[in-house]
């Protein structure tokens, strides 16, 4: 059996580890369009902070490819020929396969800003991959003013990572609050205050209307001068390789076996769209844990095993300067449970006997109990929900359920 994996990040690595659980012999080729050992993308901001070294950014140990008998090819796939079971690389090289995995990731989304082309290329950066971080790092110095467009997870991790190295950082976002995709107004407030206290400036509820060289003109006419521009508006799934080959909606559509609609072609990670177990909607959840689990699931099925994964949910864990937030699920339901104390904030979103989502700022202890209630769609009347709201723990489950979970009956 010949396995071909496009992508060398969480989805691709998950596929390798999934395949090797079943098939120790079959040849595995991984094609990566980056010239690096597998690394963890979310670590690029820590790299800029100087918190981790080059060795520690590796997502798997130095012997990963040798140990798993994987051939790593650095190249870019130009096209897939499913009828010939072959891909062709941009250099013309052909690689054939029996089972194909597409873990092609996502790319930064760049809105059509007026005047963006007038911003010199050497002053313009994305913050997505290792090269982005290394290039940005080279351009930084104490005299540079940085403008980041996008106050989401990527933009703010970038801001945290570079703050000490530059003259100033300003972050612009159309949304009225920072981290708007994962936090509500109350949850966003302590983070904004903390980041502002460290020196980051925000321009919220405003977008960039146009660029005039190294000046951004905002919607309300205010101008922000910058030396370095980082665009962190969002990401889009890399679906082009499977265009006209498999079903693509917003992302590549996969089922719970990580199969695409094309035979012998699987997909995982940021490039796919799948069902959110917390809402039932099919959507893109470009998050590392989902990518790995989808990849591993694909790998097991590619190698002839049996695996399903139908419990993907949105979940985020992130911290800035020591203040942490964890969130999961969807913020829907007609009922809320809220605790607020200082910077600490807990909000549970529930209704129809199910927990749908939560935000925990500050004390994140045992957050996984809540995540599990969302993931498993646990009927809230089967547990002591009043207790678990206040104090997440195994105590909220019935004795029988506890015996199963703690006594050896669970996964």
């Amino acid at each position, binding site marked *: 059996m010949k396995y071909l994996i496009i992508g060398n990040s969480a989805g691709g690595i*998950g596929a390798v580890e999934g395949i090797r659980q079943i098939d120790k012999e079959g040849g595995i080729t991984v094609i990566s369009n980056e010239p690096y050992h597998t690394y*963890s993308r*979310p*670590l690029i901001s*820590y790299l800029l902070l100087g*918190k*981790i070294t080059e060795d*520690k950014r*590796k*997502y*798997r*140990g130095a012997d990963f490819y040798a140990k798993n008998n994987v051939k790593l090819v650095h190249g870019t796939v130009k096209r897939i020929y499913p009828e010939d079971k072959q891909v062709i690389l941009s250099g013309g090289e052909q690689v054939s396969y029996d089972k194909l995995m597409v873990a092609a990731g996502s790319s930064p989304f760049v809105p059509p800003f007026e005047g963006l082309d007038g911003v010199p290329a050497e002053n313009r950066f994305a913050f997505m991959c290792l090269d982005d971080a290394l290039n940005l790092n080279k351009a930084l110095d104490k005299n540079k003013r940085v403008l980041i467009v996008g106050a989401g997870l990527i933009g703010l991790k970038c801001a945290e990572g570079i703050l000490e190295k530059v003259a100033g950082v300003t972050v612009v976002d159309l949304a009225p609050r920072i981290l708007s995709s994962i936090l509500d107004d109350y949850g966003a407030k302590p983070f904004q205050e903390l980041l502002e206290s460290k020196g980051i400036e925000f321009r919220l509820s405003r977008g960039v209307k146009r660029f005039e060289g190294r000046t951004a003109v905002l919607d309300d006419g205010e101008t922000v001068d910058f030396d370095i521009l980082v665009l962190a508006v969002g990401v889009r799934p890399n679906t082009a390789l499977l265009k006209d080959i498999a079903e693509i909606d917003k992302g590549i559509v996969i089922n719970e076996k990580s199969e695409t609609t094309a035979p012998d072609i699987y997909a995982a990670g940021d490039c796919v769209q799948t069902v959110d177990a917390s809402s039932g909607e099919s959507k893109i959840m470009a998050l*590392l*844990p989902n990518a*790995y*689990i989808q990849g*591993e699931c694909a790998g097991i099925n590619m190698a002839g095993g049996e695996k399903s994964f139908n419990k993907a949910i949105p*979940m*985020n*864990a*992130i*911290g800035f300067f020591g203040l*942490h937030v*964890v969130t*999961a699920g969807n913020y829907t339901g007609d009922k809320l449970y809220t605790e607020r104390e200082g910077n600490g904030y807990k909000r549970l979103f529930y209704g129809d006997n199910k927990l749908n989502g939560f935000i925990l700022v500050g004390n*994140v*202890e*045992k*957050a*996984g*109990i809540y*995540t*599990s209630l969302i*993931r498993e769609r646990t009927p809230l009347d089967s547990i002591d929900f009043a*207790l678990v709201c206040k104090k*997440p*723990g*195994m*105590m909220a489950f019935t004795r029988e359920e*506890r015996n*199963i*979970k*703690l*006594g*050896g*009956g*669970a*996964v």
Partner: protein
Amino acid sequence: MGCHLCEYYCAFAGTDGSDMARALKGIKINPRIKIEEKDGISFAVSCRHCREPLCVKGCITGALTVADGVITIDRDRCVSCYTCVLSCPYGAVSPSDDGAVQKCELCVKTAEGTPACVRGCPNNAIVFEERECAE
């Protein structure tokens, strides 16, 4: 019976000391095994070393790994993002006092064979054995 001795043995297992009372006196311990108690019921919760470990699969750095069925944390590789805290259905991975997350590692790093909490439990309520999983 809710004596919490396992929590103290756990905290002590991470120190170099030879005298538990001296090592932990005046310290607010942050053990890897934790007692839950309510209305006269109490039980200890620590890592189940799951066969399908969501903490390991979700770890963004590769700091959490499984070897011979035991899930351990490479503290040098952990960046304290807390994705594992968010993932663990038992609440058995927690922030530590010094950066990296912490979890029960069955005392494999202290090389004492039987975990300290098991040896220290006066009521033999904590056992160390492999059990078949439902799946």
